[in-house]
């Protein structure tokens, strides 16, 4: 099992990184490539770097069976675009892991999609990773419906070409 762990390239998120390091120690057959941001943790069981250049990041996403990360849009899209399962642990403002709790809301909404596993506490990580691995085994590479170019794209094309606006309000 190949996993890519990403917590973004900036603020550290050591709850997740430490949790993944501990899990990787218990699961030596798993290979975890990690982008850990400004973390000072010593991670003996992860192939960790602070920052993966975009091309390297994309390659690591392509090679991974599944993606694990903070509940950022970058993490989720990296998986959704490739039809790969993803596990997210949201950052929390009260632990000073982020400025506000938007990742909790993101996790709640994206957790409704097939192929997205959400864990709310780091102690749930082993269970979540078990579910993630089950998704990989069940449907390697197709655990997610691919992203489509839906209505938003047509609305923007029309606006650029003709200046037309869509109906207002919740349409």
């Amino acid at each position, binding site marked *: 099992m190949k996993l890519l762990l990403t917590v973004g390239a900036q603020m550290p998120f050591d709850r997740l990184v430490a949790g993944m390091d501990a899990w990787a120690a218990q699961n030596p057959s798993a290979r975890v490539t990690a982008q850990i941001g400004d973390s000072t943790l010593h991670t003996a069981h992860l192939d960790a770097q602070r920052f993966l250049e975009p091309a390297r990041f994309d390659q690591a996403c392509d090679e991974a069976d599944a993606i694990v990360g903070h509940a950022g849009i970058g993490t989720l899209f990296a998986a959704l675009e490739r039809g790969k399962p993803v596990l997210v642990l949201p950052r929390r403002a009260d632990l000073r892991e982020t400025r506000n709790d938007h990742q909790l809301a993101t996790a709640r909404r994206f957790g409704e999609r097939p192929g997205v596993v959400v864990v709310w506490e780091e102690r749930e990580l082993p269970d979540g990773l078990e579910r993630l691995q089950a998704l990989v085994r069940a449907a390697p590479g197709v655990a997610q419906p691919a992203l489509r170019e839906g209505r938003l794209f047509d*609305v*923007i094309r029309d606006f650029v070409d003709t200046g037309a606006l*869509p109906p207002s309000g919740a349409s």
Partner: protein
Amino acid sequence: MGTHGAARQASSPRRQKVLAISSGGGHWVELLRLRPAFDGHFMVFVTVDETYRAHVGSAPLRVVPDTTRWDRLGMLRCAAQVLRVLLEERPDVVVSTGALPGFFGVVLGRALGARTIWVDSLANVDELSMSGQKVGRFADLWLTQWPELARPGGPRFAGSVLG
């Protein structure tokens, strides 16, 4: 772009210059995801990280300093750089997914006569971002990607980058 772009170019009223601007991380990922909506037009990307050049292929990429609303001087520097890029590029359309650099792009772009598009990030699930709220008066096409956040006076909901 390829053949699809060429076909659109032939049928479009006019090939436009689109300046796409955002900060890093998720904002940038969503901005890139919107790219097919501008097939057939000429694109200039503006962001805060030189390494993102790898994402845009042959399209030009300009870098401006990132900032937050807790950093007054940084905001001024960022706005000045965005203004400079706008004056040099003179886009027909400015599109942004946030955050502050994109806010400046839309506000200043509109002042310079561009048509403007704001697509508030998917990360703003429960309420619009601060930039997304304040940008409403300056965005001709002002969009949220969550239907619950649409309001009669805007922002509008017209789907999301997820399809």
